[in-house]
């Protein structure tokens, strides 16, 4: 765990302690389970987003993809009576295709990630609303999917299964990002795509793969969100979720320029964001201030982190120069 991640963890614990002191319900089993479920859902999104951000790209269509794929998923299993495992695989495949198309447009046709995914944001939302004729997708009365419901919204040993899924995904993706050849390529491309290309890396393929990973993880969380809300009005479902994901990654130390960040940080960033949401509810802060609180905390967090970096660099320099003066005659 890097120092940055540790700092974030301490911040999470401090905020948690303060909230508990004011409202002990923060630590109640039901609140923790609810919050950890939300952490899981948004955490999976943030991990996907992190893979794109590390390449210096961005994925803005996340929220709309969640609306579209969530709608489709419910429609598949509730209306069209597709078996849920098949629907599950179909949705993940759709997520992969969306990611592939974005990656392809960005690397082969040289469009900017911001533009491509902004168009995606508009298109998928529109398609989702059209698909349901601006209605609501939901289950009919009495429709039950016990296994699916257990896997998505159930609990084992008191832990939401979604949270267990997040832990598993986070560990796997941590290894991929921080230990694998592919992960090294991602960092290299984020640092300097040209130089990576000149080192013989097929940068286009690597970047497309990053968008595909993001697409699949987004699709997975779309299913989780669908099973969590159980009814979806595509006009608003998932709105701004891309921003939660980006904010979590940035809080976790990812640079939007690419080539920097740790997966643990992205997960911790999500935890902090959800903790803040929770705090607004528990402390009786008007929920209209929700976004303002979150924005403020992110701004302060990034500021402190950046200033701390400057401070440390300066201290290192001063120390080095003191040592240098003492050591100079020996040179």
């Amino acid at each position, binding site marked *: 765990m890097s120092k940055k991640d540790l700092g974030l963890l301490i911040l999470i614990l401090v905020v948690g302690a303060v909230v508990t002191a004011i409202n002990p319900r923060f630590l109640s089993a039901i609140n923790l389970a609810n919050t950890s479920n939300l952490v899981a859902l948004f955490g999976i999104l943030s991990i996907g987003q992190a893979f794109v951000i590390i390449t210096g790209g961005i994925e803005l269509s996340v929220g709309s993809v969640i609306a579209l794929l969530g709608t489709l998923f419910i429609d598949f299993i509730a209306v069209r009576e597709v078996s849920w495992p098949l629907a599950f695989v179909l949705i993940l495949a759709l997520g992969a295709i969306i990611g592939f198309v974005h990656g392809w447009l960005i690397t082969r046709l040289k469009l900017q990630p911001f533009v491509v995914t902004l168009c995606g944001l508009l298109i998928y939302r529109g398609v989702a609303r059209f698909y349901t004729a601006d209605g609501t997708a939901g289950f009919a009365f009495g429709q039950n999917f016990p296994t699916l419901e257990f896997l998505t919204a159930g609990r084992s040993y008191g832990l939401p299964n979604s949270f267990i899924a997040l832990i598993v995904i986070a560990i796997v993706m941590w*290894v991929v990002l921080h*230990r*694998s*050849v*592919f*992960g*090294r*390529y991602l*960092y*290299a491309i984020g*640092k*300097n795509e*040209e*130089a*990576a*290309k*000149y*080192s*013989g*890396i*097929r940068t286009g393929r690597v970047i497309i793969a990053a968008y595909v990973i993001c697409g699949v993880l987004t699709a997975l969380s779309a299913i989780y969100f669908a099973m969590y809300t159980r009814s979806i009005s595509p006009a608003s479902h998932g709105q701004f979720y891309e921003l939660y994901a980006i904010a979590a990654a940035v809080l976790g130390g990812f640079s939007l320029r690419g*080539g920097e960040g740790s997966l643990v940080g992205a997960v911790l960033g999500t935890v902090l964001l959800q903790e803040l949401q929770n705090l607004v509810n528990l402390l009786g802060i008007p929920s209209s201030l929700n976004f303002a609180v979150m924005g403020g905390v992110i701004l302060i967090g990034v500021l402190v982190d950046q200033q701390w970096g400057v401070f440390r660099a300066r201290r290192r320099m001063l120390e*080095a*120069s003191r*040592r*240098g*003066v003492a*050591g*100079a005659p020996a*040179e």
Partner: protein
Amino acid sequence: MTSTDSTQPTTAPFLSLEAVRKTYPGVVALDRFSMEVRPGEVIGLVGENGAGKSTLMKILGGVTRPDSGTITVDGAAHDALTVEQSIGSGIAFVHQELNLFENLDVAANIFFGREPLRAGPLRLVDRAKLREMVAPLLKRVGANFSADAPVASLSLAQQQMVEIAKALSIKARLVILDEPTSSLPMAETEKLLDVIKGLKAQGISVIFISHRLHEIERVADRVVVLRDGTLAGTLPKSHINHDEMVRLMIGRMLKEREKAGEAARAPGSVALSADAIRTSTYPDRPVSIELRRAEILGLAGLVGSGRTELARVLFGIEERLAGSVTLDGKPLNVTSAADAVANGIFLVPEDRKLTGILLDLSIAQNISLPNLPAHARRSLVSVGAELSTAEKQKKNLGIKAPSVLTRTGTLSGGNQQKVVLAKWLAMNPKVMILDEPTRGIDIGAKAEIYGLMRALADAGVAVLMISSDMEEVIGVSDRIAVMHEGQISGILDKDDFSQENVLLLAVGKKPKLLQAAGGAQ
């Protein structure tokens, strides 16, 4: 070089440094350094990288404060200059990396931030006045372009003239040129040297820093040599010559170049052959070239003659529009750098910092990057394997760094270039293409890189070296191909090597060959 010996002691120096010392943590960057610059004098400043030139420049620019010593500018003594004092007293810098806005025109660049404004609340730029102010400056540097030409459309030498005009616009009395010619081709260099002579004639002093010693020989009135932060010696006009400068710079004689005229080697078989390929820069001109094993083929020509494009096509970075390529006699279709690397065709690119290495990665990570799967088990990077490869290369190439975990961004240019070479050497090259491999690198590291290229050729690798440095092309190559406007205008064998022949071919004329039949089309 007519009346250059005339301005001597009588004039008071414009600038003098006395016993200047500057230390950094663990290093004495400059010690007991003294020098003088008289009005209208051209000082050649030479020294290896790390000899203290940059520190000296920073002190003169007011960016760095010396620990002790005195700086006298225009009669006024200072312990240290501030940036304002430096600019105010007329010291101007033209850096190796130009600081121009490519998207703006010449005039806007010269008076950026100081534009004449029209009266009125909108504070619009007075274009007419601006042009009036720029015209005499451009005339003084002998510019052959107009004030409203976009900087992006100018050649490198012309851009440097813009920088010098900018210096003159702030009434410079001392212009410091930091390796201005390192990226200029031969013909452009001539223009720049003329500009320096012009400045001198106007009574402006010049400090000319260059690794290209023959240029120093031609324009300097006096040469100041730095070595390890101290003054290694000063050469008066009559004593300026190449060998003497090198001796002072490194403290010993250096056998850096192979003797020209050494018995020509038996050329190896053809490794890479390109037949009538076309590049996007010159889509109408087919170019053919053969790279032979165990041979260093020098590729000379003016900047813009299509050399870099040819290299980029062979390496798969740029699209091949037509023609065919064979490797070891078999057809080869390279459509990406990854293809080229997989076939043992490697490129050491022209722009080291942008494309050669990743400055933020460590030496070890840079070296393993092109061959990462070989440093991994089940797709997971093996740091141990990575480090052992890097250690081996670090030792082989003599990369000077605290450890292989050092960030490459903190290394000197020469060591960065060695890292670029190391990543390819670790992978058994068949064809090695080097684009300006010694640009901006000091003499010691240059000699080592020449040695490496020779060792590669001796080991049977086909080496293609693109270079704008005449001494280098002639000194290092086994054969020289010269490009002119997108095509190979001729190939010189060792017996026909001469600056004149290379230049003639570079401008598209016939060379003077020993045998009647020579160069190929």
